[in-house]
């Protein structure tokens, strides 16, 4: 049984964590937590960490004792500098809280790259965890909607750079902008949908890692996959429809439509891991092997695991990329935004200075 720690940082990280906790209750609905028991596929510990008490209160399926408030009242207002300061002031307390959960075989750190708290805590915390724990640490980084403003873009740019610099085991990207397609009407339902999808894929991965599989993938394989390319990747998913072959199902998990971040896996994929779950009657192992071999030629190393469980085949793909054109685009936009912001500020300052100049030699007279 694997011991897994999942940390949700900032509002975004907290919510995805809460979604994981909810999914662990199964399909019981809102009240499941009152009578049901969480069924994690491994020994999973979760902690929601935030500087905003209200964000923690908003959670529904995370135990109160698993909600950790870092005292800075109502968030850091997207200011990563304040966030870093708050973390430094409180890191002992945070690490102590994590330490209470015992030892871990795998750690997930979920955060938005755009906010203040999560994005500033994440790189620092990963650094601290790396020092304390021997376990691989995978970051789930949620990218903002591009229209959310220059600060979020700027935060994302710096946060991602810092996360890569921590040399964590890998970064899996979840792009709100890309997943906007889920939002039918409002942003709330888009968040819920993104959170649930992300949560399910993480649980799928945990289940695969913790199970006796027909074709084995394990933590070592995961580490290898995550260290491929630039150490940044994402997850894909495909569920077989009636009559579809296992091959088409596997290939489906590589389709951009199933990815959490826009990428051309065939072109940019470095390493991949495929986890196939389904009823034995659907699982033609020869075909699976053949398909994976074919994929390997294009994607590079592809690890596979087959999980025999009731139901139609579902495939989770997890991969790292050699190049991330979308990120480049994002950084360009971010840089523009920062520059624009700087210019605006200088201009404003000049304007203000000019204004002040009018009263330079004057004294107030009463």
């Amino acid at each position, binding site marked *: 049984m694997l011991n897994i720690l999942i940390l949700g940082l900032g509002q975004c990280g907290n919510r995805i964590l809460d979604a994981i906790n909810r999914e662990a209750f199964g399909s019981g609905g809102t009240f499941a*937590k*009152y*009578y049901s028991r969480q069924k994690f596929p491994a020994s999973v510990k979760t902690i929601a960490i935030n500087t905003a008490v209200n964000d*923690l*209160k908003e*959670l*529904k*399926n*995370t*135990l*109160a*004792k698993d*909600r950790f408030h870092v005292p800075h009242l109502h968030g850091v207002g997207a200011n990563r500098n304040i966030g870093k300061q708050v973390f430094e002031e409180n890191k002992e307390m945070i690490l102590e809280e994590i330490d209470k959960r015992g030892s871990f075989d795998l750690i997930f750190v979920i955060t938005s790259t755009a906010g203040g708290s999560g994005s500033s805590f994440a790189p620092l915390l990963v650094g601290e965890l790396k020092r304390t724990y021997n376990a691989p640490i995978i970051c789930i980084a949620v990218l903002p909607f591009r229209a959310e403003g220059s600060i979020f873009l700027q935060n994302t740019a710096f946060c991602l750079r810092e996360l890569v610099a921590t040399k964590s085991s890998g970064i899996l990207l979840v792009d709100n902008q890309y997943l906007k397609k889920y939002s039918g009407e409002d942003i709330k339902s888009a968040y819920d949908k993104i959170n649930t999808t992300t949560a399910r894929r993480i649980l799928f991965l945990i289940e695969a890692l913790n199970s006796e599989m027909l074709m084995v993938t394990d933590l070592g394989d995961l580490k290898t996959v995550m260290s491929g390319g630039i150490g940044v990747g994402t997850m894909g998913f495909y569920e077989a429809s009636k009559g579809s072959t296992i091959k088409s199902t596997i290939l489906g998990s590589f389709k951009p439509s199933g990815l959490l971040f826009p990428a051309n896996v065939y072109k940019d994929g470095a390493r991949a891991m495929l986890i196939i779950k389904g009823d034995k009657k659907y699982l033609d192992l020869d075909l699976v092997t053949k398909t994976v071999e074919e994929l390997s030629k294009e994607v590079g190393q592809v690890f596979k695991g087959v999980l025999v469980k009731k139901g139609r085949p579902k495939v989770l793909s997890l991969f790292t990329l050699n190049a991330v054109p979308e990120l480049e685009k994002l950084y360009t936009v971010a840089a523009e935004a920062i520059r624009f912001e700087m210019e605006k500020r200088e201009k404003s300052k000049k304007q203000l200075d000019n204004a002040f100049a009018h009263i330079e030699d004057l004294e107030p007279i009463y």
Partner: protein
Amino acid sequence: MKGCRILAAMVLFVLIFSMTAAADSINTTVDVNEGIVLNGDIHLEVLDVGTNWGSYAKLKFYSYKDAGGKTESIYMGDVPTTYTSGTFMKIEVTLDSISYDTAFLMIESTTSLKISDRYGFEGEDETEKEKQKPITVPKLGITRTFDTNRAEQGQTIRTTLTIRNTGNGTATNIVLDEDTITGAYKDGCPSTIDDIAAGETKRISYDLRIVDAQPGTYELSPAILNYESESGATYSSESSSSILEILPEEVRIPELEISIDSVKGIITCGDEFPVTVTITNVGNATTGKVHVKSDLPADVRVVDGDLEPEYESIKPGDSEEYDVSLRAYEQGKHTIEMQVMWGDSEAAASFEFWAEKSGLEQYYLYILAAIPILLLLLWVIKRRREYSY
């Protein structure tokens, strides 16, 4: 009686005959209310003369040493009447004949006789004399009584005839002539009755058995007595008629009633409670063997006592009562059916009661049902607290 007289006469005759040799005999006339003194010792007075069944003279004898003497009626043709004085002078008197108020007497004695004196005395007055006359007329009165005037068929009426002789003569050859109701029979009733002396009262009782007399009211004709006086005159008297009512025969059957009761109408499940069963013979005959049967609800048990006793018999008007301790286990209405059987008959009774669970037991189910709800609630509260931040 006649034999006795003949014997006495013969003895006297021999006596007289043997003594005639030394004897003296005088004939004298003595008037009524006149007396003579013989040898200065024996007084002989004629009290009365008359004719009744032949001529007689009523004589009174007394003497110096026998002041009481004796009075005797002597009849013509009778054997001599003997009197012995206090000094043992003995005379024999025979009535020769009478006239209107004089008796002709022949007096004999073993010694020589001499009328030493003759005297008159005050006789009883005429009416008294008349009363003294021996009128031997019997007069029977008869009354009939019953111990009851109403009787059922098959019953017996004790009938008593009270016959009183208010006359002065003995009634003889008394014959009872009494009719009775058709279908009734007399038991122990004589048809002839012994002589009843004057003043005597005789009671005759007998049973009148009403065997198959039709029910109804009957007038019983008077009981008639035919009788004779000693002189042979015939008489008759009768009682008044009587009313007798004959009732139809009552059917005699035993009839039992059974009842079952308890002081408690509502009992507690599992608790003992007493019931009393009473069997009463409300009929008018004694029963044969009596069986009691019960039908208890499935959850009712007899804890103490016999709910189905047997009795050899129960007399009319008698009651048999017994107590039994029962216990009911289930909640709700219960009915105990009791049946008493005798001969070919039976009677039944039932008893209803409510059994209730004891305080705690009553709510046992609710409490039991509440526990999981409570636990669930506690669990939910606990969960809520765990998840409320």
